[in-house]
């Protein structure tokens, strides 16, 4: 049962990931990215990481995808399809490179001796929270600093350049 669910979610993730990189219409590609993110959230639930699944839906689907769709609509007038500007480039070398990379990664991880079953119980949210405020407290705080820096930087980059008012 759980294997069937995992296989279905994996198929959903793979098919919509291919849509993300091949669809010509960028808006549809962004919506397929939403499907990928929901599929990965489902896989997190299968792997008994419920908290991460909710964070994934909240942050990725709720915030990042909305932001991406807004950016696509804001720049829509610049992406008018013209015949001399193809939507993608160097397809064959890129396909060869990514297939080669996939083969290398698969060959590196497939023959390793993996355990047949989980060696421990699922990680509880309490244990995750405890890790975040004890062992990992420094990276946790650094991430919040990065958030502030990204927010200030994004506002500074994207704000319109208004001419400075002359001093009275």
């Amino acid at each position, binding site marked *: 049962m759980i294997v069937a669910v995992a296989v279905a979610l994996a198929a959903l993730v*793979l098919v919509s990931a291919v849509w993300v990189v091949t669809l010509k219409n960028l808006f549809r590609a962004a919506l397929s990215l939403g499907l990928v993110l929901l599929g990965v959230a489902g896989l997190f639930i299968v792997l008994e990481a419920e908290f991460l699944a909710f964070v994934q839906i909240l942050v990725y689907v709720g915030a990042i995808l909305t932001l991406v769709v807004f950016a696509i609509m804001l720049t829509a007038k610049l992406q008018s399809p013209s015949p001399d*500007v193809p939507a*993608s480039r160097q397809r064959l070398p890129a396909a060869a490179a990514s297939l080669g990379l996939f083969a290398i990664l698969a060959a590196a991880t497939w023959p390793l001796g993996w*355990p047949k079953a989980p060696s421990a*119980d699922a990680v509880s949210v309490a244990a995750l929270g405890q890790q975040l405020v004890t062992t990992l407290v420094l990276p946790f705080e650094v991430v919040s600093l990065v958030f502030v820096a990204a927010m200030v930087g994004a506002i500074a980059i994207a704000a319109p350049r208004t001419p400075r008012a002359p001093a009275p």
Partner: protein
Amino acid sequence: MSPIPASLLLSHALFAIGIYGILTRRHAIGILLAVELILNAAALNFVLLGRFFGQAQAQAFALFIIALAACEAVVGLAIIISLSRNAQTVFADHVRLLRG
């Protein structure tokens, strides 16, 4: 048979599809979408192996990946908005101001 190698194949495939997207997309937002695919593949790997080896820190690192992906998307989209305003283009290979 262990379920780990097959699951790893899924995240490898997600990663390779993301690389393909970065190499082929000309639209800057399309490249950003492909980067999100790659970050998701990494987070999926962390959660999978953390589940099988019983490590809570793996989930914490997947959490950090999601947080940093949010920062990356915000800054990247700000750059694209600014680019579309100043250079009147959203195609990554049209921006060649710094190319000699």
